[in-house]
């Protein structure tokens, strides 16, 4: 036991020094954390207000920010072209609203329309980017403005003149052009957010069961029954979970669509503890794996306990109790994170990483660079379209000509704040970035008006923060990647250049 303790202390020490290093390595993030904390302290509003607001915005925006990750990995930089995906989503929403579909059905129809449009547009954007290798970001930015022009042409002119649309709620009085705002209340508003947990669990059970059955069938066809017990066990497990949902207390709990943050934390903490305990027991007692290091799971358990204990502090409890999470939206965000990670573990993902790191090497290794880049763009545009649908169904009103205009800039700002750069982006960057950026977004006007006593200054602050964030983050990243060799004349005589430029003779 003593051995364990010293291990644990050493583990904590390692983690602390690691933490100190990573703070320095993540100057950008750190600066925004400091700004956010300063902002939070000076809003002059209760903390519950800001926290609730940030959680709402997190659900609304994270999906679209996550859609930016694949292009960064494939070496396309920050994809300002997601605006095009957002437009695809808006065209789909307009169709759904016009045809009068509502609820889940309407939502699925919207997705069904938006997906092919966004894939096609993503393909075209990818083709364009392949012609402008190296300047994808500025191309994407300008492309966004150009696409905006086409979009306005479609909505202000073609609808009404070429496509006769008669609907006084949607169309400007003269019969040509779509109105400035479209109200989504009563058709698409909150359709995702209000899916109850019960339906989610049922759906998950159904999908898992289906997959397992398919796998069983495959095994029977192939006469390979090595993993049959596993699959059968899985099906029984799914059935058991499904049965549990019929217990009245659980059914009542699950039938709501919002999860209180406190409950979420509780579930998470106990889930983590049980999982880690299970791991320890499994590795130590069942597999007798001598190499298994117990410190990490132990640390996780302790951290979980500490987090749980923190929720009993009245001030924190008050804040946590005030927040409700729209479950389905968060589940979708989690699924996209899983998708991004899984994709990177496939052949396609590895190709994307290779292309992103060096197109020359990828080419020499027989990877079709252009095709890989186009696939990355199609995926990104499609995910952005879905993200925009999530965003709009949560907002509830749809500003026809403005909803997409800033989505690229905001999403990219958020990703940058989270510590991503033009060459490196992860799920964690996106999630952290959304939290920080939107905290700042919520807090800055409040703080400004509280400190200066003028609400107009607050509005200036908001605009200032949005664009300032992009500039500062990019500048700080550039500063971080400046070459270290700045010591004037000292020549490293024994230092052969890392990658010699091909001899001038060739």
């Amino acid at each position, binding site marked *: 036991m003593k051995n364990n303790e010293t291990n644990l202390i050493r583990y904590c020490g390692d983690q602390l020094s690691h933490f100190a290093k990573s703070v320095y390595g993540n100057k950008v993030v750190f600066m925004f954390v400091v700004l956010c904390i300063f902002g939070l302290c000076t809003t002059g509003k209760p903390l519950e207000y800001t926290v609730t607001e940030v959680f709402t915005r997190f659900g609304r925006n994270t999906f679209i920010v996550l859609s930016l990750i694949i292009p960064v990995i494939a070496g396309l930089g920050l994809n300002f072209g997601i605006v095009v995906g957002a437009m695809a989503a808006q065209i789909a929403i307009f169709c759904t609203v016009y045809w009068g579909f509502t609820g889940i059905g309407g939502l699925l129809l919207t997705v069904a329309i938006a997906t092919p449009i966004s894939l096609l547009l993503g393909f075209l954007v990818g083709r364009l980017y392949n012609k402008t290798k190296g300047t994808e970001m500025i191309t994407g930015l300008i492309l966004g403005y150009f696409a905006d022009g086409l979009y306005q042409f479609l909505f202000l002119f073609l609808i009404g003149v070429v496509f006769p649309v008669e609907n006084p709620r949607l169309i400007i009085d003269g019969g040509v052009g779509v109105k400035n705002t479209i109200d989504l209340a009563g058709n698409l508003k909150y359709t995702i957010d209000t899916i109850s947990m019960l339906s989610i669990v049922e759906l998950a059970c159904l999908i898992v069961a289906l*997959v397992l059955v*398919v*796998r069983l069938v495959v095994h029977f066809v192939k006469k390979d029954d090595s993993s049959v017990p596993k699959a059968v066990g899985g099906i029984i497990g799914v059935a058991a979970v499904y049965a549990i949902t019929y217990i009245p207390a659980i059914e009542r709990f699950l039938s709501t669509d919002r999860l209180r943050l406190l409950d979420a934390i509780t579930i998470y903490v106990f889930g983590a503890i049980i999982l880690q305990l299970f791991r320890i027991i499994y590795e130590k007692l069942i597999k007798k794996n001598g190499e298994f290091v117990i410190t990490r799971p132990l640390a996780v358990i302790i951290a979980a306990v500490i987090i749980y204990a923190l929720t009993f502090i009245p001030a924190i409890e008050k804040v946590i109790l005030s927040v409700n999470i729209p479950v389905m939206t968060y589940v979708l965000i989690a699924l996209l994170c899983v998708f991004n990670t*899984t994709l990177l*573990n*496939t*052949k*396609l993902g*590895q*190709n994307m*990483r*290779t292309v992103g*790191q*060096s197109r*020359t*090497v*990828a080419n*020499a*290794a*027989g*990877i079709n660079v252009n095709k890989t880049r186009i696939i990355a763009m199609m995926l990104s545009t499609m995910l952005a379209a879905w993200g925009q649908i999530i965003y709009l169904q949560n907002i509830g009103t749809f500003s026809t000509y403005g909803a997409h205009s800033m989505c690229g800039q905001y999403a990219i700002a958020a990703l940058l704040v989270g510590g991503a750069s033009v060459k490196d982006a992860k799920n964690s960057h996106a999630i952290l970035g959304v939290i920080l950026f939107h905290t700042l977004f919520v807090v800055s006007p409040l703080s400004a008006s509280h400190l200066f006593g003028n609400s107009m200054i607050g509005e200036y602050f908001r605009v200032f923060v949005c664009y300032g964030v992009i500039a500062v983050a990019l500048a700080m990243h550039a500063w971080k990647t400046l070459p270290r060799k700045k010591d*004037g*004349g*000292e*020549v*490293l*005589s*024994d*230092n*052969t*250049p*890392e*990658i*010699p*430029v*091909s*001899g*001038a*003779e*060739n």
Partner: protein
Amino acid sequence: MSAQYVLKMDGISKEYFGNRVLNNVSLDVRPGEIHALMGENGAGKSTLMNILFGMPVIHNTGGFTGTVEFDGNPVNITSPQQAMELGIGMVHQEFMLIPGFTVTENIKVGREITKPTIASRIFGKSMERLDRPAMRADARKALDTIGLNIEDYVMVSGLPVGYMQFIEIAREIDKSNIKLLIFDEPTAVLTESEADRLLDAMRVIASKGIAIIFITHRLDEVIAVTDSMTVLRDGQLVKRVETKDTTAVSIAEMMIGRKVEKLLDEASDNRVIKDDDLMLKLRDFHVDMPGEVVKGIDLDVRRGEIFGIGGLAGQGKLGIANGIMGLYKTSGSVELDGVAVDTKELGDALKKGIGFVSEDRRGVGLLLDESIESNIVFSAMQIKGDFLTNLGITKLYSPRKGKKHTDEMIKALDIRCTGHDQPAGALSGGNQQKVCLARALTLNPKLLIVSEPTRGIDIGAKKLVIELLAKLNREQGMTVIMVSSELNELRSLCDRIAVVAEGKIAAIMKPDDSDAQFGLAMAGYKGGAE
């Protein structure tokens, strides 16, 4: 021993735009042998390898003639992919590695091992999951084969340069069907002990029956490791010999062996060159020019002489010239006519009186879209403030002075053009070179450094440039340093020639020293040049 050859290239000829670079060359390699391909820069080694690898540059320029037989079957290789499928691998001189990937990922790049998943059954093979343990096992095996003892999960970016070569090799031998490996100057960037390990690895690979074509300039390595060799010179096959039947000296002779034709007549030489009257003095001079690193040289250039700097590509001869001009990071001291030159400050060398004609004529040397006039007066205007009219508050360019000077230069150097306002980019290579020279001369330099003055210009223009340099030297007493990879040219013009090898001065020689001596010095042969 004339058994089966894994590779048999016969009667290969290749022309680039009417310029014959390979003429009836053949190359035969047996399985499991290490075969050296030797020759100076421009002897045709790269072209031969490009043909073998099916590089697009060959087929875009009209293909080649001759036959290639690989593994007993006649083949027509039209793309690098096809060459790879046949089992030809290449270890590149510039590393084709991804710094942000682990060793394993680099070894298996493009050939990842995958497992099917549900998604892959729907969307096709590209959605299959990577089987990382299997990939690591393969990488480990390849690394063990060549005796490289590093962890397969570390990032390549943190590794020393020497390791990267080994990872490239591991990647090539991991290809299951590999039969022939080409090493393109693999030891050029390695330290001595790393190079030794590389040679060991090559022996191990060859012992597994994989043939190796080894392209290098280092004669001692060739003697140490190869079984046989093919020597090329000026696109011609000199000889195919077994290594055991030859010596370093005779190889050097085969590589260089060529008559030196004097491009000048010696009649007008009435210079007096004194050993203690120095124009340029370099002490412990280092230059950090990528691909042309200079690692500490001492050099004295006497007033009034033409001093040649020769050596193979990538050995550092270009680094000396560019370093003196302050274009790259340097250390050590440079003295011009007794005055220290600050190479850390760009332009200081120009101010102190060194004229420079860059080897990169179209990149650094000329403003291609600007007129001949702007090109000629530009440096003098910037550095010395010539050709300007002073208006008191500001200075303006004086077209009258500029035009007058340009016309003089056009006449003096015989620049063939339509007039002083023709864009420099529209001129032929030789005339462009004259414009560069005119600009350097406009500065009235004490010392003129010309770097590769005859590269890419035709023979007639070459002669003119050489004569011009000689005239400047003989008539105006200008000290000239000429950097060139054409030994012949240096030997025809220079009073002394420094041969640079591996960033250091290998020898300072007379133009009439023997071919073998030059060959050995250029190859940095350490066996002693007798």
